[in-house]
């Protein structure tokens, strides 16, 4: 894996001044990856690609969109009807946001299952959490832009949460609004920030990948790479697999875009925003439902906001809350079960969030919220001490060979004896 010198004269000229060819070779071609990564490792690259799709469609949409309370809704309808392929671009952007969250959530759950947040990848993990916050903020502000009923009322509900902060809350909220209610200044700044934040996300993604390439990928076994035998070059193995993953993701995305483009959205957002008429149910998009359930599970406004923010912020200290030395859930028999309980808990929270806070939804939401935090604050610290992990394989190479039914090359004698 020596750095190849480009043969082309122009390339040599460039390489001498800015070594982009050897850089690309190192990071995209020769880069050694564990050879046992499974398909759950596809979702990082998918998140990166969907970010690019969102930025490109978003830039085109911004060329036709008007951020003004009197024109925003109309300009979106113009995009849908009069702009060439405008409906396609908008539907890709709309459903792309859902796809982004689906991919990112799978990516995060994968990290949790295989212990990818553990040493030495804590900063890589932190950067991922920062990305999640940024993506959520961007998605929320983007949802406000069409200025439909749910855009307006979601903006009102969510920005009002800021007012729960003691002392400065209401001042902060008015400052956020740029006035005394959600109005034109709010829409303007949301548009500005919705255009800005994706590029901040790109910046953090670069840091995320930098940290990844510094300490390298985790793998399903959760053990460290020990020799060159454990790895294979990124290209062609993971380039081709990522391309296959991209095809599969686009297929799913396009099923939504072309056949059920509004299934994940709120019907009422096709009614223009009316500050005098509150919709019967104010519900966020599906990807915010679990947090919404946590927010409403706490009977106190400030407490709810704190719990909602904490539900994500707690991930920052996850590397230390999980006291187990073993990374992968494959070798943690109890954690493996509890991981799925945790996933189920998140789904139930989402279901609770979609429903009005009445009847049994109230206590179900509260129990699931308590469990959510207990998973991090009680179960993981104790479990790491009590659980007896299964023995770890000696190396990735050996484990891969065993799985394929072949005998480990290092000890042929041992296998012979068994026959």
């Amino acid at each position, binding site marked *: 894996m020596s750095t190849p010198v480009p043969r082309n004269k122009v390339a040599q000229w460039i390489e001498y001044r800015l070594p982009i060819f050897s850089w690309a070779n190192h990071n995209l071609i020769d880069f050694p990856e564990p*050879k046992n990564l*499974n*398909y*759950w490792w596809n979702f990082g690259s998918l998140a990166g690609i969907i970010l690019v799709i969102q930025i490109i469609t978003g830039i085109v949409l911004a060329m036709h969109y008007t951020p003004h309370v009197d024109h925003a809704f*109309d300009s979106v*309808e113009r995009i*849908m*009807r009069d702009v060439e392929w405008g*409906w*396609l671009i908008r*539907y890709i952007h709309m459903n792309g946001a859902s796809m982004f969250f*689906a991919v990112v959530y*799978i990516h995060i759950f994968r990290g949790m299952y295989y212990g990818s947040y553990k040493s030495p990848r804590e900063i890589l993990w932190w950067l991922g959490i920062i990305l999640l916050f940024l993506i959520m903020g961007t998605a929320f502000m983007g949802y406000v832009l069409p200025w439909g009923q749910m855009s307006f009322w979601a903006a009102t509900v969510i920005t009002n949460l800021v007012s729960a902060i003691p002392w400065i809350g209401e001042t902060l909220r008015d400052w956020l609004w740029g006035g005394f209610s959600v109005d034109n200044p709010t829409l303007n700044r949301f548009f500005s920030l919705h255009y800005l934040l994706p590029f901040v996300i790109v910046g953090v993604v670069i840091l995320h990948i930098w940290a990844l390439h510094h300490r390298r990928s985790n793998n399903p076994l959760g053990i460290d790479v020990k020799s060159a035998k454990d790895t*294979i070059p990124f290209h*062609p*193995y993971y380039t*081709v*697999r990522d*391309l*296959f993953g991209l*095809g*599969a993701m*686009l*297929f*799913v995305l*396009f*099923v939504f*875009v*072309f*056949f059920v*483009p*509004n*299934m*994940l959205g*709120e*019907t*009422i*957002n*096709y*009614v223009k925003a009316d500050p005098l008429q509150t919709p*019967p*149910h104010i*519900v966020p998009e*599906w990807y915010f*439902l679990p947090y919404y359930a946590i927010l409403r599970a706490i009977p106190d406004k400030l407490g709810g906001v704190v719990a909602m923010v904490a539900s994500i912020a707690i991930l920052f200290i996850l590397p230390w809350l999980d006291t187990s030395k073993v990374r992968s859930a494959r070798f943690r028999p109890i954690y493996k079960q509890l991981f799925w309980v945790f996933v189920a808990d998140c*789904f139930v929270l*989402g*279901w609770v969030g*979609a429903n009005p806070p009445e009847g049994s939804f109230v206590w179900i939401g509260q129990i699931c919220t308590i469990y959510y935090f207990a998973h991090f604050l009680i179960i993981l610290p104790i479990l790491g001490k009590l659980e007896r992990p299964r023995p770890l394989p000696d190396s990735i190479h050996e484990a*891969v*060979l065993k799985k*394929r039914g*072949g005998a480990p090359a290092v000890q042929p004698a041992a296998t012979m004896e068994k026959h």
Partner: protein
Amino acid sequence: MRRLMIAAAALALGLIGAAEARAAESAGPLPSVDFPHIGVFGQYDKAALKRGLQVYREVCSSCHGLHYVAFRTLSALGMSEAEIKEVAASFKVTDGPDAEGEMFERDGRPSDRIPSPFKNDNAARAANNGAMPPDLSLVTKGRNGHEGYIYAILTGYQDPPEGFTLGDGMSYNAYFPGHQIAMPQPLSDGQVTYADGTEATVATMSHDVTTFLAWAAEPELEERKATGLKVLIFIGVLTAILYAINVRVWSRVT
């Protein structure tokens, strides 16, 4: 891989379930009614669209506009340019100001959008007992229950049950939230005389005008589904090839 597919399927089912659960939010269950344009490959019933336009022109348009629908787009219904000009000219459009600074009314042109008969929202309220007849451009897209709901409202006028007190000028509708609707029953049997000889029952007219309004809300539907089919076939084949290459490349790894 298998686990991943199971997870993907479970996620998709969950999402569909959540969306379905949220879609059903009108007053009581809607009557089940079929529209050919609903469904994966469904396209608009062209004859119904034309009849629906007739119902809209003769009945609905006296109160409701279609602010986002330009007359020129009626070509999608199979209308000729001359026919579109004639339809447009049958509507009055406010234009101006002219050289004297006055607003004036003129006949509609194909480039105009289908106007509301009222000068503004307040005029609309004043003429309708305080209620605002909404613009219908997005009515099938912006109401829970969609086409089924619109059809239900149009066919849901009944005598109020005993003990139900209706407000002044209100009508009883089985499917409207709260059952009190400011719009008087708009359709009655034989209200329009269809050009194609179809019998104009309330059910037929409701079905036709709902189809027309669905088109008004989603004029891109036919192109969207047709394009989608081609795109999915392309991506499907491409993904299958990539999978085969993937398997082949990985078979080298020991």
